[in-house]
């Protein structure tokens, strides 16, 4: 039974193994929990900026090793862990002193640049292709049910937090011709 549990845990962590074993640090003081739940036992307190070894991830929790102890800390208390699997967006030249409006990806693939966007005409052919992709809501709901996804509309929207350090509401410092998206 224990073995099955361990195997399940490994499966659960598989998608996160790309950063397993990397060193990160704490963004704030937080407890090391015995399992990935705030109701589990608090083993010890890890101080802000402490180095931790990242072993895996599950939901909002990071499995870490600290001071010889293995446990779980809140994901939000840990500094971003670079995703090593994505560090090789290769085939693209690093452009020094780049001009955002003129940046295009190389390797024969065209990037989206703002100059093109500004002069772009509507492609009705592509627009028609896009319109035809609309999913019927019933199909989307059915697909979600097959994945055991459950809708919960009672979850409240999040309020704007009280301003934190060094965060202002100015517009970006980047080029005025920059793209705006995600």
């Amino acid at each position, binding site marked *: 039974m224990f073995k099955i549990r361990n195997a399940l845990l490994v499966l659960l962590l598989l998608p996160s193994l790309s950063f397993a074993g990397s060193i990160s640090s704490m963004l704030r003081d937080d407890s090391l929990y015995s399992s990935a739940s705030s109701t589990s036992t608090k083993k010890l307190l890890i101080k802000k900026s402490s180095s931790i070894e990242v072993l895996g991830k599950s939901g909002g929790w990071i499995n870490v090793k600290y001071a010889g102890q293995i446990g779980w800390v809140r994901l939000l208390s840990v500094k971003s862990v670079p995703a090593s699997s*994505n560090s090789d967006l290769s085939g693209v030249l690093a452009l020094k002193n780049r001009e955002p409006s003129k940046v*295009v*990806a190389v390797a024969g693939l065209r990037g989206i640049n703002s100059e093109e*966007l500004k002069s772009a005409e*509507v492609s009705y052919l592509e627009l028609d292709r896009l319109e035809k*992709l609309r999913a019927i809501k019933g199909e989307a709901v059915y697909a*979600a049910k097959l994945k055991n996804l459950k809708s919960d509309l009672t979850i409240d929207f999040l309020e704007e937090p009280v301003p*934190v350090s060094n965060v202002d509401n100015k517009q970006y410092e*980047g080029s005025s011709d920059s793209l705006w998206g*995600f």
Partner: protein
Amino acid sequence: MRNKIKIGLFLGILFPLTSLAGDFDNVFKLLIQQRVEQSNPKPPADVSAQTTTKKAGVFGSNEELLSNVLLGGSKTKAEEEKMGREVIGSLLSVSPLLMNGDVQTYVNKVGTWVASSLGKEKRRWVFGVVDSPDVNAFSAPGGYVVITRGLYELLENEAELASVLAHEIGHVHKKHHLEIMQKSSVLGLLGNAVAKKVEGKNESKALGFGAEVFARKMDKSAEFEADRMAIVLTARSGYDPFAYFSVLQKISGISKSDSRIALLFDTHPAPDERIEMLSAAMGEKFDDFNGQVVAAAFIKLSKK
């Protein structure tokens, strides 16, 4: 009398935007003068100077644009959809849809499911993957959302995809595009008025909105708001909301000198800053939330 009311309304709408645009008093006067002249046209002294004063844009004439865009906030869903078609249609001419029917169908089902978690929202949503190596996603009024192949390739599970689509759904739902269009319109008109004065041109430029809306800056607060929407919509749809942090962390881990991410970094708050803001907004609310990652059903796109 009617003109006076119009001018009053016009000033009333411009006033809150002066903090954004700086001191444009003189330009306002020029604009008002322009509006009065348009309402009471005088015979031109020089026929050659009578160039296009009503050039058709997305909304038709400049008169319509002033009322439809500057007096924003009252657009119907049909009007929004029309604007969105122009915007997203222009983007698609720059970056066409990926030729992969399975992925497009899949993304539409996931996106439609996530959008349904808005509740009473009755917008008609459509989603697409565009064939671009850039790491980005875009949305437009009316319910249009596209994600680039470059960003899709970074994703590892359906929860991550859902969270990215949820962020864009948040932009549309909160009408951030309309806000930026309105601000841009005012600034554009002001710019035209200045140009007109400097160059002595008697020409009124039409302000159509195409994909250039994606080339506009916007307040950080809109991005943070869309981030908060992403967390909630992802969770409401049954997914692990922390998948969104994984996406932000992946973006954070990409070299800033990588041209495929450069534009996103130039236009957005740093991923770590977004994580910090989200963290402050979430507190411990989702610590024990049991959402799904859905890795098995995720259609993975391998890098080209």
